[in-house]
């Protein structure tokens, strides 16, 4: 059994990042839990990925890449970043602040949006919303460019309230009325984007946000009980200070980082699974002026978080990226990125192209008979490839325990190497039978390598391994 500190570090790295090898876990555990939390929350303290290297191998990532090119680039970044929480928070916001390739004039516009999530995603929530309201991908996706002072389009105004800040309600009460939606939409009239330049002959250009005061409704508006000549910025300031917003963002952070909650549409009438934890996040939200980083510091250092191991179903992105980090593949942007990254889609999460503006349903809904087979086969193929440097490291480590090891050492060693996983007794006993079934386990042989690979394959196929 891995010691408690390693197990806890494995948990933190799965949640705040995309998992880590056993070597990295040991180094981080030696450094301390809180120090690691601080490091994760300060991504700028770590080096950026080498853009030159990415551009040399995959020039299409920086030019006019379509959906799959953008997916490849992001997958590569998640696998190799030294700033795991920077990518994780970008994924968090992408799963909430949904834009979709299906309605995006210029694919790179979404990557530009994700750069904003990376830059501002751990900062003040009101600042992030201000950026989102001016983000060309979002303005176009939710039709705010079609909202005019004499003919409003409510799409952005509604989703800002329903999906991006406070949700329809909490504690059984509604958070806003239909009139609030209309007034909100009025306040954002004139918030539009530059016309996209025709695609031919030079290809597409990124759109820019512009404020067209001639198309803005300057009339008086009453929004959530406050009356004034509100413009979009004022609306966001009012939204940010609502208790409903503190609750909604706290629940999202909990659902993404701590434990699976019911699907979002049920939140109005379903109390949080851990009301105390949510309360402490709400308090921190107001205490720090809506600071996401401070909320996450409270979250990661809480007992509720530390006790929440294996209470979340891994998303397809976490599965694919975590597996690649574990086995040490695609540590350079080599050919084959496309085939690898597409597995995230096959498992049910087509990044940058979510099924609806509500994003993906998470938790158990990631799994169906099609996606489960994709998930198990992809993961088992990767960990069963004993040529991968990460698997070689596992074999060396387990082999270093002596000329022979016991079935218990093989099973528990593999579980540790995968990130201090734990199995139900009945599952562990099956793994022990498997370990015993081929006789004495002699290390340092080719047969040993195969037996380690085989054990890893059987473990990653369990229901236990579906969780993080």
């Amino acid at each position, binding site marked *: 059994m891995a010691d408690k500190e390693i197990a806890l570090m494995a948990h933190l790295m799965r949640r705040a990042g995309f998992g880590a090898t056993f070597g990295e876990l040991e180094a981080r555990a030696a450094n301390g839990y809180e120090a690691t939390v601080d490091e994760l929350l300060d991504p700028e303290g770590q080096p950026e990925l080498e853009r030159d290297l990415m551009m040399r191998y995959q020039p299409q990532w920086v030019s006019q890449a379509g959906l799959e090119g953008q997916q490849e680039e992001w997958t590569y970044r998640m696998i190799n970043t030294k700033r795991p929480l920077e990518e994780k928070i970008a994924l968090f916001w992408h799963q909430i602040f949904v834009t979709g390739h299906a309605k995006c004039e210029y694919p790179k516009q979404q990557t530009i949006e994700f750069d904003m999530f990376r830059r501002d995603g751990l900062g003040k929530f009101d600042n992030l919303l201000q950026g989102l309201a001016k983000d060309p991908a979002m303005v176009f996706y939710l039709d705010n460019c079609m909202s005019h002072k004499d003919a409003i389009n409510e799409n952005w105004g509604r989703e800002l309230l329903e999906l991006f800040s406070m949700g329809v309600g909490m504690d059984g009460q509604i958070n806003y009325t239909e009139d609030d939606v209309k007034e909100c939409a009025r306040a954002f009239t004139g918030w539009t984007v530059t016309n996209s330049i025709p695609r031919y002959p030079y290809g597409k250009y990124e759109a820019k946000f512009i404020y067209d005061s001639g198309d803005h409704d300057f009339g008086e508006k009453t929004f959530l009980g406050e009356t004034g000549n509100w413009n979009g910025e004022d609306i966001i300031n009012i939204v940010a200070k609502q208790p409903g917003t503190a609750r909604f963002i706290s629940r999202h952070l909990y659902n993404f980082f701590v434990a699976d909650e019911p699907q979002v549409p049920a939140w109005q009438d379903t109390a949080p699974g851990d009301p105390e934890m949510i309360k402490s996040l709400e308090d921190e939200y107001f205490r720090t002026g809506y600071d996401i980083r401070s909320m996450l510091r409270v979250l990661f250092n809480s007992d509720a978080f530390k006790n929440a191991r294996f209470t979340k179903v891994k998303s397809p992105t976490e599965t694919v990226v975590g597996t690649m980090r574990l086995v040490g593949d695609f540590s350079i942007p080599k050919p084959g990125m496309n085939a690898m990254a597409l597995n995230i*889609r096959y498992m049910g999460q087509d990044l940058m192209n979510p*099924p609806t503006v509500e994003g993906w349903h998470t938790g158990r809904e990631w799994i169906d008979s099609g996606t489960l087979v994709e998930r198990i086969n992809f993961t088992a193929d990767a960990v069963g490839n004993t040529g991968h440097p990460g698997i070689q490291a596992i074999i060396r480590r387990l082999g270093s325990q002596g000329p022979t090891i016991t079935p218990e050492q093989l099973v528990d060693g593999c579980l540790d190497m995968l990130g201090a996983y734990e199995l139900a007794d009945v599952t562990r006993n099956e793994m022990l039978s*498997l370990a015993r079934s081929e006789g004495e386990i002699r290390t340092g042989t080719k047969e040993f390598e195969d037996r380690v690979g085989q054990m890893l394959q*059987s473990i990653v*196929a369990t*229901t236990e391994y579906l969780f993080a």
Partner: protein
Amino acid sequence: MTSTKKDPVLVVLQLSGGNDGLNTIIPYTNPLYNDNRPAVRVPDDQVLQINDTIGFNPAMAPMKRLYDEGKLAIIQGIGYPSPSRSHFRSMDIWHTCEPEKVGDEGWLGRTISELDPTKENVLTGVNFGRGLPRAMAAPGVPVASVGNLESYGVLTGIEIEEQRAKALDVFSRVYSPMIGQGPVLDYFAHTGLDALKGADILSTAPESYSSTIEYGADSVAQYMRNIAQVHLANLGTRVMYTTAPYNSFDTHAGELANHTKLWSETSNAVADFYDDLKEHNASDNVVLLVFTEFGRRVHDNGSGTDHGAAGVAFVIGDAVKGGLYGEYPSLEANKLNEGDLAFNNDFRGLYATLLEKWMGLDSKPIINGSFEQMAYL
């Protein structure tokens, strides 16, 4: 419809990317066709004539043969109001029957749920290809998604057979005890065991299959062959789905050469599939739908065609009353919808016909409303 005790089966072939309807069923005598297609035009003397106004693309001889045999219905002018020219959005609309808001339940997912509400057969719906198309997805509906039938299954990457058998044995023995261990684990256990069971059953299909038909090597042909294999294995599968390679029909450039190749492969695959079933006396309870998310711009762009609106669909089978349905959309400039053909046949009417007259289901809850049925069945 032939009288038969066999359960009706629906097969769907999706042509991804937006097939150019104008160069599929070609209005070869219409001067506006020539005017609008200075570069991307099929010469009128090559068209496989249906009548004195329209005919098949010359690459479609095998489907023309099915048409001549009265087994193929051509659904003209198919589409929906306020057409989207986005591949994803338009395909979503075809998949979910939700042109106004974004929906996440597929019409065939709902169909499978109606056909097998108690989930007795894990193979009632089978998709061929990687990743489940939204058309087949609905909450709680198990659908097998098969990338490669010959090697489909759980833990297929384990090459040594003895080792794999052992791993699968472990798999079933660690999933079974999770049944009853709370709602989430229970669901995962059933899902895993269903997948295992489905894979076991499906793997028998190619073994029992033999045929004189030699399908092409392209992926559409291979998947149509897989569909025939599963149908002939009598596994109780009622809905099968496959798609042409992602966006392959998106002929913005070099259309004439690409489109010829695409239809040559697709048309052969469709006819081989039909002949294969016929050879095994198994064609009478199968209907095949071939559709695409939109047609293409009436005027060409010098090398290909851009995204358009109304298109053409095909329904094929022994039960189908072959012929022309709907009207060929007008090419008159004042009848176009922003340069694209206007639809006169709602795709939901096409679905309603298949669901009601073929599958024997109430179509309203599946396609979100009542739509006029067509006479091809």
